[in-house]
Structures are given as C-alpha cells and as structure tokens.
C-alpha cells in the first residue's frame, strides 16, 4: 500500500477531487425511500445499504473494514510506526431524517472516503493507523435519541439503556437493530478504548448560515451545544367557544402560547447569548374551530454552550410554566425527555486545524456547533475536533440542503492536512 513513492501530504491533498466527492454523495443519495429529498432512517435496511457502499469502497482501496454490534462501520489503514496502535480517525454518519438532504453526515463520510483514497493512491506514509468511520443511527428523528452509534462507541449506550427507545410505529430500537443483523444485546462491545485512539476529526456541513453570510469556507468548532428537553402537557376544559364566556374558560392553548412567548423572551435577554430555546412541536386537542382547546402538549428544547446556564434556564422555565398554569387554572404535567451537556472541544485540536487552514490561506471561523454531532460522544473517548463546510442558505434536514462540491473538497483538503498533522503530533 505504501510501496509507491511518497510525494508528501501535499501530494495526497492534490488528489482530493470534487467530482469523486460528488459521485459518492450522489450514490448514497439514491439509497432512499420514495418521496421528497432523502429518507434513510436510523437502523433501517436502507441505512445498512449505505454502509455496504462505504464498506465496499473501502475494501476496494485495500482497507480492513469491521462492523460493530451497534452498526458502526470502521475501516482501518495501518500505520508504519512500530507499536503505534493509537489511531487518527475521521468520519460521520450515513442515516438521515425523514425527507432530509444528501449532505448531513454523508459529507463527512464522503470526505473520509476521499481522504482514504488520496492517502492510498499517493502512498502517503503515516505513523499511526488511520481509521475511517461511518457511524450508525446519528439522527434522533426515528427513536428520539441522537448519536446512537457514537454513544455505543463512547461506551455510554447499554442494552438496558436502549430498551425504552422506540419509533412511532412502536418498533423498539433493539428490534430495528436486530432486524438489520446488528446485536443490540452486545452493544457494550462497540465501546472504543481511549488507548486505541490518538484523536478524531469529523467534517460536517454547518447546517446554519454563519459561514455563508461571512463568506468563510471553513468553520472550526470549539464547543458543541448541549440540550435539555421537556414535554409539557397542559389540561384545561374543552367546551363550546360560543357558549363559554371568556372569564369562565380554562383554555390550554392560551396558557401554552404564554409559555412559548416566555421561551423566546428568556432566550433573547442579555444573559442568554448562546442559548437557543425552541418549541418545535405543539399538539392541540380537540383541534376544532368551535371548541376551546382542552389539552395541549408541546416540546421545549433548550440548547446552550454553557451547561449550567442550560439547566438553570430549563429549571427556570419549568417553574414559570407552573406559575402560568396556576394563573390560568390549567393542570400541568412536565416530562423531562432529554439532557445532554455541551462538550468543549480541545484547544489543541482547534489550534491544529486552524494552523493548517492558515498555512494554506484558507479563511476560517472558530464557532460553536448548535447541533449535536457524533464528535460530542467521541470526545469522551479521545481528543476530538470538527470542521464545518458551508450550507447554502443555512438549510439542513430538508431536501434543499446543499453544499458546493468545491467547498466540500476544500474542507476535505483541510481535513487531510489536519489528520496528517495529528498523525505526527
């Protein structure tokens, strides 16, 4: 594999090809359910087919590919240094949300494949093993919990812990995993050991519009937001809209509306720069023009780069929701459905990636990630960094999600240089 003459890392960088990145992404995008955009849900047969494409591509390049109990596909390229088993890694995920785009996750896997190809074809010698990872089931859309493959890799996931996860059709995550040949009962065997890793860098599309609006091709992530999530149920009295005077109503929707506005108000005050609060789901019953809403269920997602502030804010919201409910005489039931801390990514990796960008005149921004990513989990195992490439119009999780292949190629070049620098570090 390394028998060809080496022309250094820039020789490998020169082989990064926007057309090949496009071909891989188009190939994966074909693997979808019918309908708009891309639908390739977590632990579905389609997701496994995408993993097969990844595996075949890596096998063609001569890499050894393994699939763990949680469905993560890991391709390894051995290093030349004797006794160096702590690997340098890169990768992302291959699943999508319903009617999502073709870049979220796939861009990072395409970059990993392209890095592997250019390293193999240029014969670039590297000291440590390089591992290329396609994580399974990153999107939380199907089972309510995100980063399932990387949670297993970080050792957080247990068979008992995943037992309560199920999709809208009542299929448990364990059943879905088993039905595509994975081993939910052995999910703990997917855990990575820190000593096997030297560092990990994920490339991902930004999914926001900071890079595009600042005309910057590269984002380097220094912190990944955490989130605290609740479902709030408000129960008042459903009754006739004409016959019930205003002062005798127990309108659950009006109370919910007050809660929603409170969320926005808190997130916008000067103590919450970096906090993002969203009510993204709100169901009204009986949902009739002529009946006062008797019951409302809504979600609240508090995201923050400051874990303490995130939880204080969530706590504050819950107690103020209770005050609103009391004032409006509706019953309130709050269920905490998720809580994840933000992860500060090591300065060492941020600086290492920034140095590569600077050295080649690539403008960059240091930025937080509002979305969660596999790297957040992997940072529990090893030093982890993230490179963002621009999302056109800031769109993501929609069919129109787009990143130019030239920009993806530029990001992949920075990724390769950073991995090489990490290999030497």
């Amino acid at each position: 594999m390394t028998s060809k003459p080496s022309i250094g890392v820039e020789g490998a960088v020169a082989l990064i090809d926007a057309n090949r990145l496009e071909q891989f992404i188009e190939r994966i995008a074909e693997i979808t359910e019918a309908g708009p955009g891309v639908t390739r849900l977590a632990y579905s047969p389609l997701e496994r087919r995408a993993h097969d494409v990844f595996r075949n591509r890596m096998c063609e390049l001569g890499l050894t590919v393994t699939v763990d109990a949680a469905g993560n596909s890991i391709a390894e390229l051995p290093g030349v240094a004797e006794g160096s088993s702590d690997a340098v890694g890169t990768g992302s995920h291959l699943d999508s949300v319903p009617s999502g785009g073709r870049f979220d996750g796939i861009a990072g896997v395409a970059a990993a494949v392209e890095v592997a190809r250019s390293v193999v074809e240029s014969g670039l010698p590297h000291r440590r093993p390089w591992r290329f990872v396609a994580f399974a089931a990153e999107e939380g859309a199907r089972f309510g919990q995100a980063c399932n493959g990387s949670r297993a890799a970080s050792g957080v996931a247990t068979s008992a812990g995943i037992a309560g996860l199920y999709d809208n059709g009542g299929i448990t995550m364990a059943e879905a995993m088993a039905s595509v040949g994975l081993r939910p009962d052995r999910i703990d065997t997917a855990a990575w050991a820190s000593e096997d890793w030297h560092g990990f860098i994920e490339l991902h599309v930004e999914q926001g519009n900071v890079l595009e609006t600042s005309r910057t091709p590269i984002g380097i992530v220094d912190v990944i937001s955490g989130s605290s999530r609740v479902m709030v149920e408000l129960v008042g009295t459903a009754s006739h809209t004409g016959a019930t005077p205003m002062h005798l109503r127990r309108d659950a929707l009006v109370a919910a509306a007050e809660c929603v506005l409170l969320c926005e108000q808190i997130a916008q005050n000067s103590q919450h720069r970096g906090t993002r609060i969203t009510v993204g789901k709100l169901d009204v019953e009986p949902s009739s023009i002529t009946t006062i809403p008797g019951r409302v269920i809504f979600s609240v997602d508090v995201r923050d780069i400051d874990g303490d502030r995130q939880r204080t804010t969530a706590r504050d919201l819950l107690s103020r929701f209770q005050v609103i409910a009391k004032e409006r005489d509706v019953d309130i039931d709050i269920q905490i459905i998720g809580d994840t801390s933000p992860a500060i990514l090591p300065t060492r990796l941020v600086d290492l990636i920034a140095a590569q960008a600077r050295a080649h005149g690539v403008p960059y921004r240091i930025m937080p990630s509002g979305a969660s990513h596999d790297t957040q989990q992997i940072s529990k195992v090893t030093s982890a960094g993230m490179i963002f490439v621009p999302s056109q119009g800031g769109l993501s999780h929609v069919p129109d999600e787009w990143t130019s292949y030239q920009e993806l190629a530029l990001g992949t070049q920075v990724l390769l240089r950073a991995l090489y620098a990490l290999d030497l570090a």
Partner: protein
Amino acid sequence: MNAVVRRSATAIDAALSPGALASGAFVQNPEFWKQELANDIAAALPLQAAAHRSDGWVTRPAILRRVATLMGASIPATADRIIAFGDAAQILGTAVALETGIPFCVANPRAATEAEFLQTGTLHAGERVAVVSVHLDAPDLLESLAGHDVVVVVWRALISRPADATMLAADSRIAAEFSDAGMVAAAHEGGDAA
C-alpha cells in the same frame, strides 16, 4: 391546578441527580458535574499544557462561571473578603466575588515592597479572608497575610500539583478542587502531546 414534573426513564445521560425532580429538575449529579468541569478545563488548556496557563478557560464564561460556583461553595459565610493572587488573579477574584457577593482584593505575594502588595482593592487588619488561586504556588503567602493582621479562614486553589502535597497536608485550611494528575487524566490520552 395540578403540577407534576416527571423524568423519562430513558434518553438521559446518567447526569441528573435522582430524586431531584420535585424541587430541582435538571440538577446534575455533583460528581458528574465536577468531572465535566475538569474535562472542559483540560480541553481548554492552551497548547503549552505544561505551563498551566489559564487563558484557555478563564476567557470562556461557560467554564469560568462553573469554576466560580465550585470555589464559591467552599468559601465560608464568615469570610469578610476574598483575596485572589497568582495566575489570572484579577479574573478569578472577580468571578468568585460575583458568585458569592463578597468583596475582593488582588494581592501579589511576590511584590518587592509592601506598597505593591495589593494590586486591586483594600485589605484591613482584623478581616477574615478567603484566599482563592488557580495554583498553590506561593508558599509564603500565609506568612505575609499574617503580617497584615488578617485571619485566613480558607485557601482554595483550583488545581494542585504533586509538589503541593506537603503544603496541603500541613494546613487544613488549604485545599484544591482538582489535582494535577486528575486534570491530565481528564484531558484524555493525547492531550499531553503537541
């Protein structure tokens, strides 16, 4: 009106304190909280990790706030004043003062003259003072404070080094939130390189 706060059995990292729902939903398990803080401080250390420069974390409010919370909790109610010294003393003193509401001053134990001892604020004879610092690298500090006729009620450092063991053992008022070894462990493998 009925108000209920429940916690879903799944989908939550083992981070929240059990049984904390009624009074304080979203209260993290204290050990978990402290470990995350150690991880974040270690992650934010600048490249010259061995130099223990604090710039990496004192400039991030998300970390500084938690450090102030942690150190503020160890300052007894009897303290009249906080004295900060050493690495990032101005920042640490400000943060812990904001957290606790206790006035502070910044001292330089290595000052050549008495007039230069206080860099910010004042200090008066008879005051009960709580010392805060990132490290414990001023062995004569207690002596010079005794010279000012103040009573040191506690000295909290953020990170102790192996060399501080004697000092920590000798005086029960002195304590550190994290040990150097613990911070390095928290920095993950590889955190020592580059």
